């Protein structure tokens, strides 16, 4: 019964999305009517529109909750549950199983979208009625595509007759708290960008682009960007400790699928600030909103269609692949067509000098666009080549070579931008302010050069840029009362500092990591960096739904107290899979990373050891970036609320 209710709720939500689209059409037209009835008609329409959006959100949420209930009850008469869950799984992974698969994740997508739409309808008070109506209409149109996709190509509530005795289980790699909550985090980011996109469509339809529109859009962009940052950082750390290969970024298409929207959102975040504060970059901001959402759609669909893995996966379910391509073409093509048709009527905003905060933000946007372009080409080129009959792969060497120089230039722009004034500034004043950052970069360069030698020139440059950015990013706080500094300034400082910290970690990892691979018997010792690692014993062990071979490693650093690490090789039964569980010891100056490999017939075990100095800075920096976004979001929202209060008293 639950499955049928869930499907019914989903179809009802789709029906309300149709009503929402029609009402929005009426609402946008009503705002054009002249005469005495206009205000009453408009208010009536908006009231109805708000209610419909709210009901649509609640229905989608109900449908998703019912799917979770099916997973929690392990209802094996539902195909999706039987394929992706197992009655013996821990409760947390039963819940996470609801979105750890294609159909469920698509339902999560549309649910977050519908709930966000309801949020816009209930709480957005800054936009003109017509623009809000057009925005909600765009939101409904996006949702309709997903409802159709769920209803016609990937229904999550299909019954299995006869019911399965038990489920096939969730991929063991997904049975990790980090990954259980990874997709929802990314989806919140993607959907935040879809709201920003709807705002842009609304503004284009009503020709209402200006600071008020930018201020309405900004919190959504900031929110989306925060979730994307958290999602990417957490995903990177998950890959690092769970896959046992010691790397933190693989330039895998799936990783790029989340990086591309982040890059676009970062650019949008900065340009929307120019629009909100200085009323500049109007058309550019609209374009970026369209691009950012396109990237999140392309990301979702690259991952979800299976097109990236092999051509076969695409052929397995042609309906799904075609549907996806059609939706992609419809949304992106439609938005670009609207942009093309209307951008000429968006009037020019304020102008500015080249040497100014706006100028630096334009530079930031251009460099981010270049990086986005390179990632986009590198991710999609293998698909294009494959269509032409050439099989090739593009990996880290390509991305490192093409992106590293642009990324360093971007770091320099990040350091300089906040030191400039809005509108106009002079070059001499800027050079004076850059004294400290440049000095810090010089000292770091000399220090790193002596330490590593000329062989790692790019790493040495990276360390110098990280040091320069770290100093430059806190300079905006100089000569300010720290207590009276607005929260959004703190946000910018913390986020930029986070970039410096993260960059420092990446460079330290690539330049100073030491690796040791050995086959050892119980009782043998291996050295890696400052550590002496002894294989003390190898024993079997057992968990809730796996069994494992576990090694006990006794580690001693110099004359320090020894400690134990327990890397494992795990075996899962449903589905039958092996995974390596790395054991990692985190210290102040880095991480010791240990992996247990296969045993051989002579009683030896493979051990893979890494000493990674300062590698944790990578994710610490990611956390700081997200925290900076959060501070900016809270600061902006509070500030605008205060301004709204002030207007009431005037």
């Amino acid at each position: 019964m639950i499955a049928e209710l869930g499907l019914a709720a989903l179809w009802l939500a789709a029906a309300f999305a149709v009503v929402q689209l029609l009402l929005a059409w009426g609402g946008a037209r009503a705002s054009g009517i002249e005469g005495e009835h206009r205000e009453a008609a408009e208010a009536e329409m908006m009231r109805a529109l708000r209610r419909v959006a709210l009901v649509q959100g609640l229905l989608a949420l109900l449908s998703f909750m019912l799917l979770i209930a099916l997973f929690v009850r392990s209802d094996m008469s539902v195909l999706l549950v039987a394929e992706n869950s197992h009655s013996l799984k821990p409760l947390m992974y039963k819940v996470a199983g609801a979105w750890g698969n294609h159909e469920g994740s698509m339902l999560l997508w549309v649910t977050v979208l519908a709930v966000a739409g309801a949020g816009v309808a209930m709480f957005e008070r800054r936009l003109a009625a017509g623009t809000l109506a057009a925005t909600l209409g765009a939101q409904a149109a996006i949702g309709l595509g997903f409802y159709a996709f769920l209803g016609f190509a990937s229904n999550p509530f299909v019954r299995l007759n006869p019911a399965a005795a038990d489920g096939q289980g969730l991929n063991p790699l997904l049975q990790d708290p980090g990954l259980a909550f990874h997709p929802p985090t990314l989806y919140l980011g993607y959907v935040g960008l879809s709201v920003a996109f709807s705002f842009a469509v609304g503004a284009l339809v009503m020709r209402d682009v200006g600071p008020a529109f930018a201020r309405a859009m900004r919190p959504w962009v900031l929110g989306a960007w925060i979730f994307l940052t958290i999602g990417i950082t957490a995903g990177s750390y998950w890959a690092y400790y769970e896959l046992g290969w010691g790397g933190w970024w693989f330039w895998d298409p799936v990783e790029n699928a989340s990086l591309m929207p982040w890059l676009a959102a970062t650019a949008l975040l900065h340009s929307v600030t120019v629009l909100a504060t200085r009323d500049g970059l109007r058309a550019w901001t609209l374009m970026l909103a369209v691009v950012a959402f396109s990237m999140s759609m392309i990301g979702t669909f690259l991952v979800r269609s299976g097109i990236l893995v092999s051509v076969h996966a695409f052929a397995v379910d042609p309906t799904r692949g075609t549907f996806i391509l059609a939706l992609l073409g419809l949304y992106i093509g439609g938005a670009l067509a609207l942009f093309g048709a209307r951008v000429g009527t968006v009037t020019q905003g304020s102008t500015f000098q080249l040497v100014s905060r706006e100028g630096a933000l334009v530079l930031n946007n251009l460099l981010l666009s270049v990086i986005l372009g390179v990632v986009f080409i590198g991710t999609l080129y293998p698909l294009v080549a494959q269509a032409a009959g050439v099989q090739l792969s593009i990996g880290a060497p390509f991305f490192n070579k093409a992106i590293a120089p642009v990324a360093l230039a971007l770091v320099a722009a990040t350091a300089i931008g906040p030191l400039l004034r809005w509108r106009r500034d002079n070059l001499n004043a800027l050079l004076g302010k850059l004294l400290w950052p440049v000095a810090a970069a010089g000292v770091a360069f000399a220090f790193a050069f002596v330490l590593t030698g000329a062989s790692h020139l790019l790493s040495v440059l990276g360390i110098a840029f990280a040091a320069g950015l770290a100093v430059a990013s806190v300079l905006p706080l100089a000569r300010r009362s720290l207590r009276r500094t607005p929260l959004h300034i703190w946000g910018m400082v913390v986020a930029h500092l986070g970039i410096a910290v993260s960059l420092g970690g990446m460079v330290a990892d690539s330049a100073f990591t030491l690796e040791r691979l050995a086959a050892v018997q119980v009782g043998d010792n291996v050295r890696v960096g400052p550590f002496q690692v002894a294989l003390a014993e190898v024993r079997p062990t057992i968990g809730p739904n796996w069994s494992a071979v576990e090694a006990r490693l006794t580690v001693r650093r110099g004359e320090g107290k020894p400690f134990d690490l327990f890397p494992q090789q795990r075996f899962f039964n449903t589905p039958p899979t092996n995974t390596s569980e790395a054991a990692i010891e985190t210290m102040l100056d880095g991480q010791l990373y240990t992996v247990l490999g296969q045993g051989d017939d002579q009683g030896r075990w493979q051990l893979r050891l890494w000493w990674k100095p300062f590698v944790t800075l990578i994710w610490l920096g990611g956390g700081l970036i997200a925290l900076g976004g959060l501070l900016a979001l809270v600061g902006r929202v509070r500030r605008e609320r205060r301004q709204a209060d002030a207007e009431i008293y005037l």
Partner: protein
Amino acid sequence: MRAKHQRLVLGLLALAAIAGAALLALSALKDEAAFFYAPGDVAANPPPLDRGVRLGGMVETGSLKRRADGVSVAFVVTDGKARVPVAFRGVTPDLFREGSGVVAEGRFNRDGSFTADNLLAKHDERYMPPQIAGKMHKSDSIEQ
């Protein structure tokens, strides 16, 4: 006039950024794209020796040998048409075994053998997006 001017300059800058990205990507592509070879392709189309490529096929049954150091393996990759001997030093992936599919990343040597820096086994988590690994598992078992 000034306002119009500025808009034009910004537009041109945006175009320059896109062109720059494309140029940068194409020049790096020329050097760094790793082409995919099956053993049968090697004779017809000799691979370059100085750059990374991928070699894909099945691990020939009975060919897998572990070296005395305990961390190196040698095996033969075959596609039914030709055979390529491969040497690899490191921990092999969990799903790497004889008779199973493998993709080796590395370089061809002058004598036609292959030295791998990295092995990706079929269904390897590093190779495959985890979210759809489960799906693939099913469609593969249907094919087999």
